[in-house]
C-alpha cells in the first residue's frame, strides 16, 4: 500500500497544489486503494498492481485543465438547460402550511384583541401553531433543490424551521402581553424563545456553507464584483454575528431587569437601544473607516 502513495505523489509532482488538485488527489487515493486491492485479489503482485492502477489514471494535468463551457443563451441559464420546477408535493405542503398559518394567526389576533372570547391557553396554542406553520414553509423551502442551489440538509433546514418558529412565537407572545391578555411575568417565555431563536439563527448563519451549484457560483463571481466587506472577509461576518448575539442578549436582559425595577412603560427602550447599537456596529463593520 505504501507504493501507491509514493506513485501518486510522483504523478502530482510539479502540479500546483491548489485546493482543486488536492481534492482530486485525495479522491484518487481512495479509488486507487480499492483498485489495487482488487488487482491483488486477482493475484497481481503489490508492486505491479500499484503501477498498473496508477497507469490507468492517464494525464492528470489534462483533468485539471479548464473545462470548456458549452455555449449558453444567457449567463444565468443553467449549463444543461435544466430548470428545476418545484415538486408538486412541496407546493401542496407549502399551500397547506400557509393556509394553516393564516387561519391560526388571524384567530390568534382576534383572540388577543378580545374580539372573540378565547381562553388564554387556546390563544397561545394558536400562536404556536401559526409560528410553527411559518417555520415549516421556511424550512421546507430551504430543503428543496432549485435551479441554482443544492438542497439544504434536513437537519439544518430543521434548524431554520425551529429558529423561525421561535422568533415568531416570541413576537406574538410579546403582543399578547402588550395587549393585556397575558400577565406581565410571562414575559420570561417569549424572552427565552427570542434568545434561543436568535442564537440558533446566529449559529446557522455562522456555520453556513455554500449551497450554490458550482456553475452558478462561477457566474456570480464573473458578473458581480464582491465589494462589501462581509463577502471579502468571512471572519468579519462571523464577528458581526457574535457581536449581534451579545447586543441582543444584553438588550433583552436589560428589558426584563428594567421592566421589573422601573416599570414596563419605558423598558422597551432597552430593545430599541440594542437595535440601534446593532445597526451602528453593522455600518461600522460593513464600511470600515479608511485612513
Amino acid at each position, binding site marked *: 500500500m505504501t507504493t501507491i502513495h509514493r506513485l501518486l505523489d510522483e504523478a502530482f509532482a510539479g502540479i500546483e497544489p491548489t485546493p482543486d488538485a488536492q*481534492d*482530486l488527489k*485525495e*479522491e*484518487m*487515493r*481512495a*479509488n*486507487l*486503494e*480499492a*483498485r489495487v486491492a*482488487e488487482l491483488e485479489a486477482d493475484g497481481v503482485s503489490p508492486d505491479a498492481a500499484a503501477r498498473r492502477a496508477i497507469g*490507468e*489514471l*492517464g*494525464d492528470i494535468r*489534462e*483533468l485539471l485543465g479548464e*473545462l470548456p463551457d458549452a455555449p449558453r443563451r444567457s449567463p444565468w441559464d*443553467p*449549463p*444543461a438547460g*435544466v430548470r*428545476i420546477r418545484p415538486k408538486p408535493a412541496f407546493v401542496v405542503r407549502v399551500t397547506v402550511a400557509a393556509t394553516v398559518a393564516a387561519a391560526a394567526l388571524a384567530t390568534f389576533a382576534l383572540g388577543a384583541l378580545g374580539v372573540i372570547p378565547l381562553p388564554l391557553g387556546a390563544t397561545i396554542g394558536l400562536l404556536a401553531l401559526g409560528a410553527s406553520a411559518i417555520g415549516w414553509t421556511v424550512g421546507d423551502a430551504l430543503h428543496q*433543490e432549485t*435551479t*441554482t442551489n*443544492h438542497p439544504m440538509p434536513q437537519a439544518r433546514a430543521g434548524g431554520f424551521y425551529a429558529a423561525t418558529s421561535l422568533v415568531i412565537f416570541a413576537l406574538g407572545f410579546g403582543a399578547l402581553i402588550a395587549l393585556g391578555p397575558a400577565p406581565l411575568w410571562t414575559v420570561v417565555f417569549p424572552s427565552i424563545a427570542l434568545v434561543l431563536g436568535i442564537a440558533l439563527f446566529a449559529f446557522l448563519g455562522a456555520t453556513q456553507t455554500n449551497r450554490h*451549484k*458550482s*456553475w*452558478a457560483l*462561477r457566474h456570480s463571481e464573473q458578473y458581480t464584483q464582491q465589494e462589501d466587506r462581509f463577502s471579502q472577509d468571512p471572519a468579519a461576518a462571523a464577528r458581526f454575528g457574535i457581536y449581534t448575539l451579545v447586543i441582543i442578549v444584553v438588550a433583552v436582559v436589560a428589558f426584563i431587569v428594567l421592566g421589573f425595577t422601573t416599570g414596563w412603560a419605558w423598558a422597551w427602550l432597552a430593545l430599541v437601544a440594542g437595535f440601534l447599537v446593532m445597526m451602528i456596529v453593522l455600518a461600522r463593520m460593513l464600511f470600515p473607516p479608511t485612513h
Partner: protein
Amino acid sequence: MVQDSDAFAADLLRGHTDTIVLGVLRRGESYGFEIYKTIRDATGGAHEIKEATLYATYRRLEKDGLVESFWGDETQGGRRKYYRITDAGRAVYARNVAAWAATRDIIDSLLIERH
C-alpha cells in the same frame, strides 16, 4: 476486424459517459471505483470506460450541478468522495435516455437489414 469492432463499441460507449454515470448514480450514491466497476461489470468486462475519462466526467457533472459530491467518513484508508445525483441530473438523464431511444431506432432502421 475484432479489434476494429471493439474500438467502434468503445467509442459509442464513451460518447455516452455522462448519461451512463448519471444512470449508475440514479440507483444510489456511489464513489469513483464503485462506479467504474459497475460500468465495467455491465459490459461483461469486455469494454471499460477509462478512469481518467470518468474523473473528467465527475468534474463536469458536478460543475453543471447534475451531481453533488461529499466525502465519506471511512476510518480506514483514504476517504472516499461520493457522488449523488441531483434533480437537475435526473432531468438531464431522462432527456438523454429519450434522445438515445429515438436515435437508436433511427440507426437500427438505417443499419439493420430487414427481410
